[in-house]
């Protein structure tokens, strides 16, 4: 099997000694981050910028430490909705893609719906969902997150299911293998990397959409509500502390998904 051209491209572009590679991949963004924060702090001190405009990194950090239990509660509230949304959306997205792959009519009927959902602001449905499910429940937020998750998972899974190489398909035909066997040994392993691409994209989207849905109503828990409450009472460092919490939450979701993917792929030994 000849090596694909893309492999050749990346290998020729990446000819650098290991020492250099280490510096650029980890150190460079860290250095940039540190420099930016430093410049930020300096600018605030030098120009006496009001915390009303933008608080200093120092004050955000101290506020974060002071209020870390409320930030934690907010993270748990939003995180729980995002997690349920992620799980439900992932399951529905994968099942939907399996169905669409098996039954062409379903695929064609679902096409406009999925295409529409992928370009519309799903959070716009939030007010209507609160009415449908009750404003005291988190269900609407979970549904918004789930809808946001279904799209990338469905699209990527469907793509993965279609990536089966013709030579593998023909091999299975030659073996007169039963469809269930083919699905288990060829289709699913081929699709797995694509499913995880979809999940990775969906994981941070779940957090963001769950958070923004809080803005449109519903119960008081969650980071979104906390941010707006803090901003409304002019406690900007606190608001930014909650924002830091939301960044950490999004990052955590992404990293966990990545770790799960690496763990599942550990047996694959190369693709």
């Amino acid at each position, binding site marked *: 099997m000849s090596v694909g051209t893309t492999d050749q491209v990346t290998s020729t572009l990446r000819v650098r000694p290991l020492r250099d590679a280490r510096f650029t991949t980890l150190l460079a963004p860290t250095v940039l981050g540190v420099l930016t924060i430093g410049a930020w702090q300096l600018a605030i001190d030098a120009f006496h910028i009001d915390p009303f405009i933008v608080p200093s990194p120092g004050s955000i950090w101290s506020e974060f430490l002071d209020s870390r239990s409320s930030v934690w509660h907010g993270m748990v509230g939003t995180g729980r909705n995002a997690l349920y949304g992620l799980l439900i959306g992932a399951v529905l997205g994968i099942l939907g893609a399996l169905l669409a792959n098996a039954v062409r009519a379903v695929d064609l*009927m679902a096409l406009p719906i999925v*295409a529409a959902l992928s370009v*519309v*602001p799903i959070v716009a449905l939030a007010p209507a969902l609160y*009415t449908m499910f009750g404003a005291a429940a988190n269900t609407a937020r979970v549904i918004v997150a789930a809808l946001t998750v279904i799209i990338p998972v469905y699209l990527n899974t469907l793509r993965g299911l279609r990536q089966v190489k013709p030579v593998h398909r023909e091999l299975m035909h030659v073996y007169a293998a039963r469809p269930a066997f083919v699905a288990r040994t060829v289709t699913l392993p081929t699709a797995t990397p694509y499913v995880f691409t979809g999940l990775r994209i969906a994981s941070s989207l779940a957090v*963001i959409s769950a958070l923004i849905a809080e803005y449109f109503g519903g119960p008081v828990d969650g*980071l979104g509500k906390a941010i707006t409450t803090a901003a409304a009472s002019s406690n900007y460092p606190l608001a930014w502390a909650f924002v830091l919490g939301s960044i950490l939450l999004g990052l955590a979701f992404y990293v966990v998904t990545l770790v799960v993917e690496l763990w599942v792929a550990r047996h694959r030994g190369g693709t």
Partner: protein
Amino acid sequence: MSALRYAGRALLGALGILAVAGLWEGYKAVGPGDGVVVHGVVVLPRTTDLAMPHVWDMFGKFSEPVNLFAGHQTVGSAVLSGCWFTLRLAATGWVIGVVVGFVLAILMARFRLAESAMLPWIVLSQTVPLIAIAPLVRRWGSQIHIGGWVWSSENSVAVIAAYLAFFPVAVGALRGLRSPDATHLDLLHAYGVGWWRGLVKLRLPASVPYLLPALRLAAASAVIGTVVAEVSIGLRGGIGRMIIEYAQSAGGDPAKPWAPIFGAIGVGLVAAGAVGLIGLLLRPYRRGEAA
């Protein structure tokens, strides 16, 4: 694809939408008034007319007047003008986002160090929630005085839309600019073509298949950003604000909030369609594209 197959596809698509409407009405007919409750959590929605208006009521709303005081303006025309307002802002944001994203992508493609340093932060930027940024942008903007021009709320909304739109463009354009085969790069090198000329002659055309889905995603993101920012800043005239306003009167008129929701959906579709047209213009550069 022949005309017949196209018609068949469109028919199946319409059938899909009808199926969703059918599901809505079907559940409404058989479902319990208080919704399906499992362990105190409402799992399936309430089916009262208040919670789930009939599909035909929702569409019928478009021709009714907005309220008793607004003269004769129908809901339909109000939603339409809101859509137009939002679309214009989203388009502005999209253009800014595309330009910024593209510039960043070129920088990162040219300098590996720039890519390593900036890309993680660019990815992280999207985890910052909009509702935190929106009031911030407005405050910053109000500090800007250039001549007689004053920063308006609309500028804030456009900036936020741009914030969401630049990310897919930066990532997609970077992938596209990096996509040419080693053989093509070697060819240009042998012709003595420098990096910047090579950008125009090779990398930009090669990036088109990656750019188009990114532009479409950026359009969708710009619309989302505009709608959420409108709510966050409280900007009148746009569809976002209208959704909140109409939702407040949902108690008396349950079908009304759905009108601007459909409007927002429409804005997203139009934005994506417009980008699709750009794709048509750039067809010669997409010849190598896999289906």
